[in-house]
């Protein structure tokens, strides 16, 4: 973590509890205008979740917490907890916050011996802090609550030799800094269908148990922010658009991602029937992070629920996030990531601007459509891999890293992987139309680009115009490859592959509501043929959308819309009908259903106006 310009610890502590903030906190607690989302549905779902998790048999803190709180298998839960406090092979950031969350939720039902053993765990265990943003959030949440629970103890009583005060102070500073960074310049591990859950879960625990009202407020605001960030990209349980830290199995089956549990609990989507459907069941059966949500008192504000569920009218939503810390081969530690999302009632088309924005697990663009069947997505990528890319983000040796990453992530160097950042891929999106350009170096490890077309599509036809037209229910997807390609028949998909290094595709998405019949959609596509060429040796596509917008995009060049340059740097932290924030302002405005909720991270205040429903 890079140092910043924060002042001394003493000054920071004083600043964080100014009378103005305390007054604001008191004022909010009296405010009648805090609209909670539909609590009945949430209460039913949290009951269902606790019932399911309390029946689990794998020893895990979430299982233990669910058993102890529901009263199911209490002796077994206590034995599990006991074993997890004595097993010296366990430790780390996941352990730190989940142990504290479980302990604080359940401590009134624990015997004295377990109180002692849990305290001892923070003396004898390795609590590795980790090397990613979510790791740090979990570690410092765990340490904050542990130091709060066992205050004024010497460093000899802690695994890291730091006293309770030091650990508390470290955690408070880091959490404060992370919240402010996220609220002003965006997350580094942004919009991850896997890891967003382990940002939300620690904040749920922190909100529940932070004794300091300022930290409690900060946790509440971070929960609001994270949930709103998910909600605006959410469509019937699908976390749509471009992502960081996305696993291949979730990319090709969005409803299988762990975040589905979060959207189900808090937004009520996907439906329960799907929740219980094995095809959609999240793969991390052992990770029930949302147990802390089910046990906790945080309730989703109504405005966020409305953002997540109101899909009556299409909208464009723009975001800025940041690249994870670049430690080598870069002039800027956290360059911006620009996200574009077009959300329609039945589908979403979303993209990142392209390039290396996240190591290993980037998902640059996709169209995701609402479907009763799995694999409800289409996308392309260049399967890039290099030690140099990894060395931008990890401190180990350049020539050693790729093999090492492959040991854990299995597919990093695979030519067939479904997640990848690539310096040879760039995008330009305008509403439901997208241009993707590929300028693959001839020396690149993989000299092809791939596309995922699920076999669950209702139709996939190649028109004489060159457009590949797909239909899934009432959603239509047009895909125009600029160069020659082949189809590879795979188990769940047709893999579109092109070996042309100077390449590009155009994507148009529509629907029955927008375009009438599928044949009508195909006809409209056929009247608009993209023009591919090279400009100074770099791929260029000129295309007029079926709605009449003229797009011109050159790799490494400008994005021109109807002759005018598009400035992606003007996106702001959030810009759209529901969620708005100027970059670096620290003020987030959420608007939906006549309710406006404003988070001011500078003053740590929440204000809300609008009518009760």
């Amino acid at each position, binding site marked *: *973590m*890079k*140092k*910043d310009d924060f002042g001394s610890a003493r000054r920071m502590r004083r600043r964080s509890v100014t009378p103005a903030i305390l007054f604001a906190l008191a004022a909010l607690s009296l405010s009648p205008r805090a609209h909670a989302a539909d609590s009945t549905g949430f209460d039913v779902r949290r009951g269902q979740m606790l019932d399911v998790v309390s029946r689990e048999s794998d020893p895990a803190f979430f299982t233990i917490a669910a058993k102890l709180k529901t009263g199911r298998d209490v002796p077994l839960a206590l034995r599990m907890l006991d074993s997890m406090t004595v*097993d*010296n*092979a*366990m*430790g*780390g950031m996941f352990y730190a916050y989940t142990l504290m969350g479980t302990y604080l939720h359940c401590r009134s039902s624990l015997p004295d011996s377990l109180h002692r053993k849990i305290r001892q765990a923070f003396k004898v*265990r*390795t609590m*590795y*802090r*980790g*090397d990613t943003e979510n790791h740090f959030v979990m570690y*410092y949440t765990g340490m904050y609550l542990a130091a709060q629970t066992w205050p004024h103890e010497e*460093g*000899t009583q802690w*695994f*890291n*030799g*730091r006293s309770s005060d030091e650990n508390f102070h*470290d*955690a408070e*500073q*880091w959490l404060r*800094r992370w919240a402010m960074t996220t609220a002003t310049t965006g997350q580094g591990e942004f919009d991850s269908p896997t890891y967003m859950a382990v940002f939300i879960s620690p904040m749920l625990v922190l909100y529940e148990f932070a004794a300091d009202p300022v930290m409690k407020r900060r946790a509440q605001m971070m929960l609001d922010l994270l949930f709103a960030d998910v909600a605006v990209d959410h469509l019937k349980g699908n976390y749509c658009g471009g992502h960081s830290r996305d696993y291949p199995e979730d990319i090709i089956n969005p409803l299988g991602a762990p975040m589905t549990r979060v959207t189900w609990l808090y937004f009520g989507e996907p439906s329960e029937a799907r929740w219980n459907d094995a095809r959609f069941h999240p793969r991390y059966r052992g990770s029930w992070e949302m147990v802390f949500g089910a046990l906790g008192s945080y309730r989703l504000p109504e405005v966020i629920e409305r953002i997540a569920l109101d899909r009556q009218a299409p909208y464009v939503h723009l975001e800025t996030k940041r690249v994870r810390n670049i*430690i*080598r*081969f870069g002039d800027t530690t956290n360059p911006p990531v620009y996200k574009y999302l077009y959300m329609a009632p039945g589908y979403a088309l979303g993209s990142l601007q392209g390039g290396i924005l996240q190591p290993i697990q980037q998902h640059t663009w996709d169209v995701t459509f609402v479907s009763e069947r799995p694999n409800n997505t289409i996308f392309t990528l260049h399967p890039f891999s290099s030690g140099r890319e990894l060395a931008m983000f990890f*401190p*180990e*040796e*350049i*020539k*050693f890293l790729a093999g090492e990453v492959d*040991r*854990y992530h299995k597919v990093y160097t695979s030519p067939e992987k479904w997640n990848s950042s690539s310096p040879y891929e760039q995008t330009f999106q305008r509403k439901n139309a997208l241009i993707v350009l590929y300028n693959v170096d001839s020396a690149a490890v993989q000299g092809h680009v791939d596309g995922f077309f699920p076999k669950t599509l209702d139709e996939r036809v190649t028109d004489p115009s060159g457009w590949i037209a797909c239909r899934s229910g009432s959603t239509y997807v047009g895909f125009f490859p600029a160069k020659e390609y082949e189809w590879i028949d795979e188990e769940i998909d047709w893999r579109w592959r092109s070996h042309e290094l100077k390449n590009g595709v155009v994507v148009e998405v529509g629907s029955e509501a927008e375009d009438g019949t599928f044949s009508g959609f195909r006809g409209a596509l056929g009247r608009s043929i993209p023009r591919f060429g090279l400009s100074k040796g770099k791929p260029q596509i000129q295309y007029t959308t079926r709605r009449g917008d003229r797009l011109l995009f050159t790799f490494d060049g400008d994005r021109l819309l109807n002759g005018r340059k598009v400035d992606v740097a003007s996106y702001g932290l959030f810009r759209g009908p529901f969620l708005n924030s100027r970059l670096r302002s620290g003020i987030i405005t959420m608007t939906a259903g006549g309710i406006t909720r404003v988070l001011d991270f500078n003053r740590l205040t929440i204000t809300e106006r609008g009518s009760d429903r």
Partner: protein
Amino acid sequence: MSRYRILITAGVLALLAGIAPAQTETINMSVLNSRRHRIGVTDNPVVGFFTSADQGATWKHHGWKEYIRTFYTETDPDGVIWSACGNGVLRSTDRGATWRVTTGWDVTEVLKVKVNPAHPGEVAASTAYGVIITTDGGERWRTTSTGIKRFFSSDLTWMPGARGGLLAATEDGLYRSLDRGASWKASGLRGRGIRVVLADRRNPKKYWAGTEDDGVYVSTDGGVSWHARSAGLTHRTVYALALDPSDTAIVYAGTFGGGVYKTIDAGVTWRQCMRGLTNPDVHALVVLSSNPSTVFAGTLNGGLFKSTDAGQSWEFNSQEDAQVWGLSVGGTK
């Protein structure tokens, strides 16, 4: 006892001290990870910090057993152990029984830590985010990267001839500070990734540098100018360098893909020494002061190897499939 007999006895004792291994010479080994490590299981191999006081015959683990990302560990003349870790800079004053993370939330990915031999309270560390330094034994640390263009630093050394002098290896060449890191100036090899830098403490102006792709360089003027010394070094990625304490014309280089190379003429020519070294990716080297024929080589995912014939041949020693990221000699008390 006559004066003559006393002198004889003292002479014999001195001779024995010179021949026999010093009982107190301790090898510090930092094991970052293991190829056998898996996520989500409880039977992973023990990694972290190990010491041997018997020339590698036995090893003792100290401190945290789970994954803590220990890159390099060094012992100061007072026996204080300093470890460069993912969690920050760790210090142990009780031979590794207990540890303190001396750095705060703002320091992570510490790759090397070096104690100033002349002033043990002064400790500098290379991190992925620049150089940090303490002058009070780790109570307070400050970032000291002013003047460095690219912060990533994988190694540094205190400069023996200059009080408070430091030479730092960065991803963009070497940087030199003559004021304990308060300011830095480029010191050559710009544009080259420097992986390791080494001071020849018998020749205070002489330094060695190993690079990512360009072999070995030597400076004989305190780091002002550098000269390639890579003849015969066919593997040019150099992660480790170690001097023979009895003859500083003898230097070992640990390379990626090529195992160990050795020069006996101060880098004029190099010769590969691979016999018995079954893993070619050597990341750490140490030569015993008490017995310079004994050399240890730490490899990436191949464990630790030992040579007792000055690198002519190697035998696997310990840490099967492990990443032996750092080696040093210390523990003189």
